[in-house]
């Protein structure tokens, strides 16, 4: 897999982790949202942390969709789960939450899962695997079939 594709997968993880952390921080400030008070959801989006978080989640979505265009869902999801390790580290160093032994074990298991996924092929979907090396004619004929 090319460096660019690996960087894209790192981007998926980093954008998701940062976006989630920003939204989590913003929602704590914005207070609770409830079904009884639906406008609170709209107002929550006006919180700068939530708004910035949403921007990061849009970047996550773009990179995630791009990754799914050439890799399996069961490859992209575990491979980018390194983001949860990032969240735990952000929680420790920026939000000063405690990282217990259980959490370290969790971090270890996620890393093992990432290694399992990354050691296999990125796509098992042979007919629609559109590598850059493939000739444009092949891809075009596949599009017609699809």
């Amino acid at each position: 897999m090319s460096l660019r594709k690996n960087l894209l997968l790192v981007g998926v993880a980093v954008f998701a982790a940062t976006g989630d952390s920003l939204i989590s921080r913003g929602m704590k400030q914005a207070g609770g949202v409830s079904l009884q008070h639906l406008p609170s959801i709209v107002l929550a989006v006006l919180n700068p942390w939530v708004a910035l978080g949403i921007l990061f989640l849009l970047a996550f979505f773009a990179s995630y969709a791009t990754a799914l265009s050439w890799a399996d869902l069961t490859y992209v999801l575990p491979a980018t789960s390194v983001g949860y390790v990032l969240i735990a580290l952000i929680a420790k160093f920026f939000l000063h939450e405690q990282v217990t032994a259980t959490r370290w074990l969790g971090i270890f298991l996620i890393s093992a899962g990432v290694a399992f996924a990354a050691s296999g092929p990125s796509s098992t979907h042979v007919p629609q695997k559109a590598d850059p090396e493939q000739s444009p004619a092949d891809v075009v004929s596949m599009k017609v079939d699809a």
Partner: protein
Amino acid sequence: MKSLYAWGAIAAIVTTSTIGDVFLARAMKQVGDVSALWRRTGLLTVLGRILRNPYFTLGVLSMTVAFYSLLFGLSWGDVSLVAPASASLTFIANAVGAKIFLHERVDRRRWMAALCVAAGVALLAG
């Protein structure tokens, strides 16, 4: 009562985000390698092809529901419960969904990856 709300939100997040992921993955596989297409046909053509794909729209709709379920869930329950629990279960649900609906070859290595990550994400809540 609060935890019942939280677990209700978790169930909603897992279901809708799995449906969203499976639809999005199917849409993007139909579109083809985005970066290769972009180089050949330009960004607008690629965007047009993605946006016209009905699975893409369905996927985004489903993910939007998942996102709002997460907002509700995060305000009802602890972020340290709702985020990891829904994420953890979504990994398992996605592996099942990808095998059944996307016909991905989920071999032992990929099950191990999904289970390790699911267990790890669940433990992070501890």
